[in-house]
Every structure is written in C-alpha cells, then in structure tokens.
C-alpha cells in the first residue's frame, strides 16, 4: 500500500484485492459481540472535514474506533478555521499533536495532496471538490464483488451528474482497473468533456443502456456544486434520467442498483426503487466501515515512517 490514499490510482489492482480481502475479515469483526480489535492501539486518526458529511465522517470515526485508534473529529464550524486559520496552519497544529493519519474532506480539489507536503502521517482523501473519493469507490467495489463475485467483464453504468461527481471519477477508474466496462450516462451538460479519455463509453440515453447492465449506479444531483443551470428543471431531469419502476423493469435480473448517498428520493431515484431488494444502498454503508478499517489497518499497521514526502 502507498503511504497516502489521494486517488484510486494510488491503489494497484493487486492492492485493491488486498484491501477487499482484508475488509472481509473486518466484516466478520463487525458481527461479533465486541466489535473492536486492538490492532491500532496508540495510533491517532484525525477527521478533518471542511465540508458537511454524515456517513463518511461517521464511517471513518467508527472504523478508527473499532481498530482501537484514538479519533479526533475536527470540523470547520466551532474550530479555529472559523477564526480564519489556513489549511497549512491547521495541518501543522495537528502534526504537532502527533496525528498518525489525517482523513480530509475539502471542497477544493487537490487539497489532500497539498496536505501531504506538510504532515508526516498518512493522508486519506475523503472527498476533494470534484476530484476523487477513493474510499467510496473501494467500498462500492467491495459491494459489487460481494454480490456478483467478480469484476472482469461486468457492465456498469454511472448515471447522472458525472461532471460534479468525485464518486463517479474514482469508481470509473476503479472499475476499469479491475476489468469492468463503464458507461457514463447523463445529460450532455453533466458529462465531463474529457470523459472519452477516461476509457469509458458515454451515452445520453439511459433507456438504451439499462437492458445490458450488471450494475446501475445512480448519482446524486449535486445542486450545491452546480454554478449554472445544467438542465431545465428537476422534473425534466427526473423524467429523462431518474431510475423509476418502469426503468427498473428494463434491467436484467440480478442487476445491482447502487447509490453513494445521500439520496434525493424522487429525483435521481424513485422512493420505492431505493427500497427494492436489488438496491444495495444500505449494504454499501455497512461495507464502508469494513473497507475503511481495512485501509486504516493496511496503511497504519506497519512501522511508523517519519519522513515528510519530498515533492513540492
């Protein structure tokens, strides 16, 4: 494993398998009466969240606690950041307090990378702007492997607001790395102009894609990141790209329905579709804890290395 996890491209296909296999053991730990192991006793993990988050922050917090690490949650409101402290000074403060790993979420793409230049510990990207969200991709890969047993030759569609989605980027690269085929589906305004260079296919017609899928991955419409009008109305978006009952009927049997959450029920996914048995959205959340335990264990379970990375 690399020291830092900034992008899914920091993880080789071989290491993806290692992360998922190790996560399997942590799933078992999650079924015990005492869901805690002493593996990372004495290590300190800091959750540094510059953006709102429920599931990712809690998931990382639980993961670190179940490994017996000490956890510090640092969010921008109610901290020195609201007094104007810069990312660098916050990082140096955490460094001085002896953080072994910093889990960072930030609205600026690339901020986790910048952080690696200032701190000695490992940096885990928990979502940076519209760039990447590698731990989400790994928990999605775990869920897909658990349900379908393989990646090679699987056909996945990632549907919706791809342009603003760090999940879509990380998951596309992850699926391609493991030998699956990926089609991005959405209105042309929400498909990144460079998508063809990713090695994926692009379609603007969801109904043409659905009948041959193994995985149908719906993205949240991220209105908080959209700085202009990308589609005429939510109603029209929902009619053209929402996963309705009628569209579910077009999916082959056994096709998984996934969503990274939080869901806009009735926009990208119909409320009753999200509750179907083939929708594995809650499993994704459960698996997230095990996958993050696996990552923290593999990244922090080795000997402590003291050097700050030299790149500038």
């Amino acid at each position: 494993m690399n020291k830092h996890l900034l992008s899914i491209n920091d993880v080789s296909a071989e290491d993806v398998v290692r992360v998922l296999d190790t996560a399997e053991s942590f799933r078992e730990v999650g079924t015990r009466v005492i869901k805690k192991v002493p593996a990372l006793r004495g290590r300190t993990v800091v959750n540094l969240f510059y953006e709102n988050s429920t599931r990712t922050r809690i998931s990382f917090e639980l993961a670190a606690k179940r490994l017996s690490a000490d956890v510090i949650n640092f969010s921008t409101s109610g901290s020195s950041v609201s007094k104007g402290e810069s990312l660098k000074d916050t990082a140096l403060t955490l460094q001085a307090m002896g953080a072994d790993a910093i889990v960072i979420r930030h609205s600026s793409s690339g901020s986790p990378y910048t952080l690696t230049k200032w701190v000695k510990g490992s940096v885990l990207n928990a979502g940076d702007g519209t760039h990447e969200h590698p731990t989400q991709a790994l928990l999605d890969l775990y869920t897909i492997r658990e349900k379908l047993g393989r990646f090679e030759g699987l056909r996945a569609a990632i549907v919706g607001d791809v342009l603003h989605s760090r999940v879509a980027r990380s998951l596309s690269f992850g699926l391609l790395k493991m030998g699956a085929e990926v089609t991005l589906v959405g209105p042309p305004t929400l498909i990144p102009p460079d998508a063809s260079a990713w090695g994926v296919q692009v379609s603007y017609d969801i109904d043409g894609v659905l009948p041959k899928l193994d995985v149908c991955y719906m993205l949240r419409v991220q209105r908080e990141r959209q700085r202009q009008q990308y589609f005429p109305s939510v109603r029209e978006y929902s009619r053209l790209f929402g996963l309705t009952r009628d569209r579910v009927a077009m999916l082959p049997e056994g096709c998984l329905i996934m969503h990274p959450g939080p869901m806009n029920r009735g926009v990208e996914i119909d409320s009753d579709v999200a509750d179907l048995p083939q929708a594995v959205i809650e499993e994704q959340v459960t698996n997230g804890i095990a996958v993050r335990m696996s990552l923290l264990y593999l990244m922090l379970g080795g000997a402590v290395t003291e050097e700050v990375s030299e790149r500038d």
Partner: protein
Amino acid sequence: MMAPARLLDDGEIRRAVTRIAHEILERNKGADGLALVGIAARGDDLARRLASEITRIEGAKVPVGVLDITFYRDDIGMRAEAPEVHETRIGFDITGKTVVLVDDVLFTGRTIRAAMDALVDFGRPTSVALAVLVDRGHRELPIRADFVGKNVPTRKDESVRVALQEVDGEDAVYMDDRTG
C-alpha cells in the same frame, strides 16, 4: 544449507492427534460442553482432525471454529508492513464452553497470548486449554500447553515447520537450520 530434518512423519502425526483426542476426552470426562478453536493457519486443520477423532471415539460432534490472531498481535507497528490477515469463523457461542485452543507449534507463547485476548471478545468460556502438535520451547510468556503431540528441544535460531495434507499436500514436521 543442510536438508531439513524430519521430526515427525504422517503416521506419527496421526497417532499424536488420536492420543490428544483421547486425552482431551479423558480430561473433560467426555465431549459435553467441549469446543475446539484452531489458530489460523494449520491450527484450524488440526482442530478439524481432532474433532473428527473425538466423533469417532465418543460418537459426539464438537463445534470447531477458526481464529485469526493478527489484529491482536503485540508487534503491529514494529514490522515494515501490516501483517496479512486470515479468516476468523466461530459459528457458535463460546460462553460456558470448555474451549481447547489448537495450534501447530508452541514457541514463544505470544500467539497464544493474542489468541486468548481474541477469544474473550467472543464470549466467556468456562475454561480454556491449549493443544499443540509440537512444543519447541523458548517461551517468552508464562504459558504452557495442556496437550502436546511431541516435545522437541530446539535452538532458538532453528525453525520448526509443520506441513499438513490440507494445505501442503503432505503430513510432516520438519526442522530447518537457519544458520546452516
């Protein structure tokens, strides 16, 4: 490098397993409340063999679990890489049971210390005993085995390796001279 010396062959291993099964039953006065938990890797295969011997002798089935002790090791953070993790599967409640931990080789005792820590996270056994195929000495903790296949005097720098049909394709115990 000298060829590894064979300490036990397949017949000797089979007879040792049979004897240990008898000793466990004698000590426990039958198979009631008994459970076997093997330490991965190879301890779990030995535990399954002991269980089928116990069934053959006593006609009773005893539950068998497999325990991986990686997360409980005392040297995490001292090795370059995080140690590899194996499967843990204990599909029964150990509370109130007489649990026999099973491992292939007893050496420093650190694995058994970790196994006992791991075990109590699953419940509260009435008692915990230890069965090993080979005891090679050099304990670093106050731990001893209740059931031993063979005591082998060794130097600390030698290594004892157990091969089992299930994973290695043969039954044998070898001693390799690391300095040789």
